[in-house]
């Protein structure tokens, strides 16, 4: 199992993702550079968080033109597992690999906090060993994490089980107050139709050590390996 973590100009959590996979979870990892095309034979790809190009114009808008994205696109089309975290999620939406878009938080301000999310489907490589309905405590940190899509797209997502994570309260219930950013249907993460490309706003890579507040996030990485 070999992971690739892409560094774009403006990526911030790329180093954290590498640290999480390599040092904490003991995985084999390579750092991929946005100007390269070679994926170095990785088995799974993570697009990490940060502020690609300063989030100027729109979050993630300018990333899909990076040379590496052509390779990521082909990798995804071939069924390879791709995980987009936060800014990585925004990039996947902008690149058309995931449906919908992410807009300014309802509060209009950046939010850094710990939240609860519920796993809605185990049918992705990143949730394969989670139970449906399992609750995870992960941090969020974003200014534009409000998930939107038109009504038809939302219906398709719900019908096909492409909603992977939803914001919930500690008891696992969706509610307005449990929704930190105004996302439609409390959506925290979605998958493509095939299920191999997943994007989410919360940061699993920041929840892998008890010393730093919890380790629920490691499930997304550990189980992916088992599932592949």
């Amino acid at each position, binding site marked *: 199992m070999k992971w690739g973590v892409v560094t774009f100009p403006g990526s911030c959590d790329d180093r954290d993702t590498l640290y999480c996979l390599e040092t904490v979870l003991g995985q084999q990892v390579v750092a991929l550079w946005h100007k390269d095309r070679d994926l170095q034979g990785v088995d799974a790809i993570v697009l990490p968080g940060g502020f690609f190009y300063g989030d100027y114009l729109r979050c993630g808008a300018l990333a899909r033109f990076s040379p590496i994205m052509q390779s990521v696109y082909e990798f995804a089309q071939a069924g390879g597992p791709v995980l987009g975290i936060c800014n990585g999620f925004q990039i996947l939406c902008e690149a058309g690999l995931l449906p919908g878009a992410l807009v300014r938080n309802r509060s209009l301000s950046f939010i850094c906090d710990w939240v609860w999310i519920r796993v809605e489907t185990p049918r992705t490589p990143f949730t394969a060993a989670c139970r449906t309905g399992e609750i995870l405590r992960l941090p969020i940190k974003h200014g534009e994490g409000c998930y939107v899509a038109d009504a038809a797209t939302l219906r398709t997502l719900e019908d096909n089980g492409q909603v992977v994570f939803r914001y919930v309260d500690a008891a696992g219930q969706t509610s307005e107050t449990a929704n930190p950013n105004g996302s*439609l249907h409390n959506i925290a993460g979605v998958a493509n139709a095939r299920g191999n490309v997943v994007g989410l706003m919360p940061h699993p890579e920041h929840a892998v050590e008890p010393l730093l507040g919890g380790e629920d996030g490691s499930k997304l990485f550990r189980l992916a390996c088992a599932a592949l």
Partner: protein
Amino acid sequence: MLAKVYVTPKKAILDPQGKAIAHSLHALDYPEVVDVRMGKYLEVRLTGLSRAQAEQRVEEMCRRLLANLVIEDFRFELVEE
């Protein structure tokens, strides 16, 4: 040549910024405000293109980069300088 590009949120899509601005305008005592939509305005300065070329190139820039058609509409005008 100057391309003035207007990018606006699609009608059906949430516009939290527009909503917040309308709210503040009400609080500032402008009850006449019915609704606010917040978009982007870009001035793209171009050189060496005919009007027809510019028309086609700017359209393409908008589709590829300047607007996200999932959530935004765009229009533009060209102004000779």
